[in-house]
């Protein structure tokens, strides 16, 4: 997280920290593993009261930030979520809340946002599709115009909270290009297939759309802006993931450093063995780099800079490797107990692994970066051409 926070931000982050320390203990998480939605409804309502779902919503819609920089504030919550491997559809809800608050018609905003702010309802973004359409950005689900309606056919997944969210924001391919449609999860023709997953408390599902009829009024934003909206939503999702991942890395690292001081082998603490010390030094470096990557991405997306996508993708490409390696090495340092269910380490491992896979794998984001770099090269080549012409002129 940022080295400097405002006092309000410190207080805000600390409130969430205390809440999670109390309500999302490792014991709680283990108990929730069989729970169909992965958290207690009152837990989520209480979190919403703390502001978890309001930070990307405009004041007009009843939301508001702590510091004037809502995404930076949300990243603080996500960081605490990572540190506690906390339950709850933080990403899903915030991404849809942001999109609806930004692009929704008054009716859409009134329909969706109050429930999200109160923690009474859940919304989720249906973008990714199951294999063989699982590379980042592939959309096969079709929206066929039929009078004032679209008819949706296809599959989405993994969709977070897909089996219990009330609102779905669905990316579909229409004749005019990609569109986003906001519809009730109860729409006829929708079948939800709960998925199994790695995270102990996050629930995912595959959602099938068979001739689901949606009115055109369900369109979120003008289709001409949909590609940009999706890009923005991806960036938001990635920022939340990055903050979570760095939180989980940090906690795993802290636990393991303490272990290394307290655990003795051959009469010496683990922390005195040079080979282990060097691995801890590397882990500390990766952790600091992880913080820097998450912060840079948060700032760039908050400020909507042109290179925001490069920072989020760089963060995902980096932490999907080094973040995971860090936590895996923490497991290794613990030996056998590190791979037992009763130890806490896997909670953080599950969190970083799941965050690394969704909304773009390492491989997806690397390819995205190449594309962005290629675009920049084209610009530079043009500029240098212009430079030359300027010189000649």
């Amino acid at each position: 997280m940022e080295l400097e926070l405002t006092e309000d931000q410190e207080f805000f982050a600390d409130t969430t920290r205390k809440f999670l320390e109390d309500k999302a203990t490792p014991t709680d998480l283990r108990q929730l593993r069989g729970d169909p939605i992965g958290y207690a409804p009152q837990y989520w309502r209480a979190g919403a009261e703390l502001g978890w779902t309001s930070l990307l919503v405009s004041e007009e819609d009843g939301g508001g930030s702590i510091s004037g920089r809502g995404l930076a504030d949300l990243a603080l919550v996500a960081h605490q979520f990572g540190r506690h491997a906390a339950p709850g559809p933080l990403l899903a809800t915030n991404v849809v809340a942001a999109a609806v608050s930004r692009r929704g018609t008054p009716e859409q905003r009134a329909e969706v946002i109050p429930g999200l702010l109160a923690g009474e309802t859940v919304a989720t973004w249906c973008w990714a599709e199951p294999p063989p359409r699982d590379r980042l950005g592939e959309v096969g689900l079709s929206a066929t115009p039929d009078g004032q309606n679209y008819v949706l056919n296809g599959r989405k997944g993994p969709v977070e909270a897909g089996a219990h969210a009330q609102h779905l924001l669905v990316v579909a391919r229409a004749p005019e290009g990609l569109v986003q449609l906001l519809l009730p999860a109860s729409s006829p023709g929708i079948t939800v297939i709960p998925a199994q997953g790695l995270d102990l408390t996050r629930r995912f599902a595959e959602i099938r759309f068979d001739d689901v009829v949606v009115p055109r009024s369900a369109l979120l934003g003008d289709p001409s802006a949909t590609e940009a909206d999706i890009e923005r939503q991806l960036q938001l999702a990635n920022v939340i993931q990055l903050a979570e991942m760095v939180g989980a890395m940090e906690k795993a690292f802290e636990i393991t450093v303490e272990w290394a001081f307290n655990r003795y082998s051959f009469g010496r603490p683990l922390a005195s063995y040079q080979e282990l010390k060097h691995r801890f030094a590397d882990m500390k470096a990766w952790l600091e780099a992880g913080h820097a990557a998450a912060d840079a991405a948060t700032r760039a997306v908050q400020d909507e800079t042109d290179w925001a996508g490069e920072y989020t993708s760089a963060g995902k490409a980096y932490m999907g490797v080094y973040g995971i390696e860090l936590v895996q090495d923490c497991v290794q340092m613990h030996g056998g107990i590190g791979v037992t269910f009763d130890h806490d380490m896997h909670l953080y491992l599950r969190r970083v692994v799941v965050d690394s896979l969704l909304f773009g794998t390492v491989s997806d984001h690397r390819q995205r970066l190449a594309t962005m770099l290629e675009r920049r090269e084209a610009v530079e080549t043009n500029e240098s051409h212009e430079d030359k012409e300027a010189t000649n002129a």
Partner: protein
Amino acid sequence: MPETATDLEPVEDFRLRLRSWLADNMPRARRRGAAPLRPRGQMSDEEELAEVAYHRELQRRLFEGGFAGICFPKEYGGQGLTPEHQKVFNEEIWPYDYPARLQVPPMQPCATIILDFGTEEQKRRHIPAILRGDEIWMQMLSEPSGGSDVAGAQTTAVRDGDEWVLNGSKIWTTGAWWSDWALCLARTNWDVPKHRGLTVFMVPLRHEGIEIHRIEMLNGSREFCQEFLTDVRIPDSDRIGEVDQGWTVGTRWMFYEKSFSVSFYVTRPTPPEGSGDGMSVGGDTSLITEARRRGTLNDPATRELIGEAHALSLVSSEANRRIGEAIATGKMSDQGAGLSKIIGGTLGIRVANINFQLAGPAAAAWTEDSRAAGDQGVAFLTRQASQIGGGTTEMARNVVSERLLLMPRERTLDRDIPFRDVPRGPSTG
């Protein structure tokens, strides 16, 4: 050690006799190289118990057919044959089911340790029972406080007349809940340096004072156990080796534990040499199948990863073969087994990463359609298990650098002081 007298059955005669016996008596195996069997850790308890019973039955058939314990001495129920015969056995049994669960640790290190250090009576009592499948043995070796320091055992045995009273806890015992006996390393003297106060006992697992707790691993597997020993009384006649000299047994035990992959006391089905069977080259084609399913098979990035995994698998299997031969022929010290551990470690991590990367996002959350990806996700979570079980790769690196390359040993602070004075850190007080 097995006899090598020339009056033994010639190897090729043995092969033919075995081949015909197997065809009549043993069930055919599922085709190897096909999709893997359900991993042990994912079986239900009922399935696991059924498999154990099945393996006991297979072992009994071998025993009755005169094919159990090829290299064990005849007087203890074995066949008294040579490593060459075992090699033939490994090849001929390739197409059949075999008692996999009764090999490591029951045959080695347990039976081999009894063979090396047991009294005549102990050997006559247990070795035939093991070879018949009546007794399944496990190792009570690691302790919760011990980590890589096996000789730092704190489970204590105190003499009481003709008996010993054991107290303490052992951990990472595979399948203790369905096994019969265990070798147990215990401390009998806290007032001498750690290697000089240990003794080994034979402990019946279903015995008063032993509570077996099954450990749940993070992937749901429950194959490991922890045993809590409270005033467990063991007759002195079930002691193996001398009192306080347990590390003599322990050293050999460690050696047997590390070298099982080149042992001729252990059955490891292998495809016959020169069979032209492509499978002898190894190579797991499931990566191809999965990539085709995910639609990425023609992506060069995917193909490079698949090729990389295949290269690592071929090379590491050749490396293990070489290292095994070098040890077997005395060209390399026994400690060279650590090299296999390192190579296996490098391979294991990299291949797990490749599988994970190829699985894609469904490894995080999967439905029935994408279960294969989910399996990779779960496997990835337990990636480190292969770096920990049977001795960590860190210990293997210590061993290779110190014992094979003869580099200076790490400083230990527990060598020359009474074990009770060894620093144990704040956590264990």
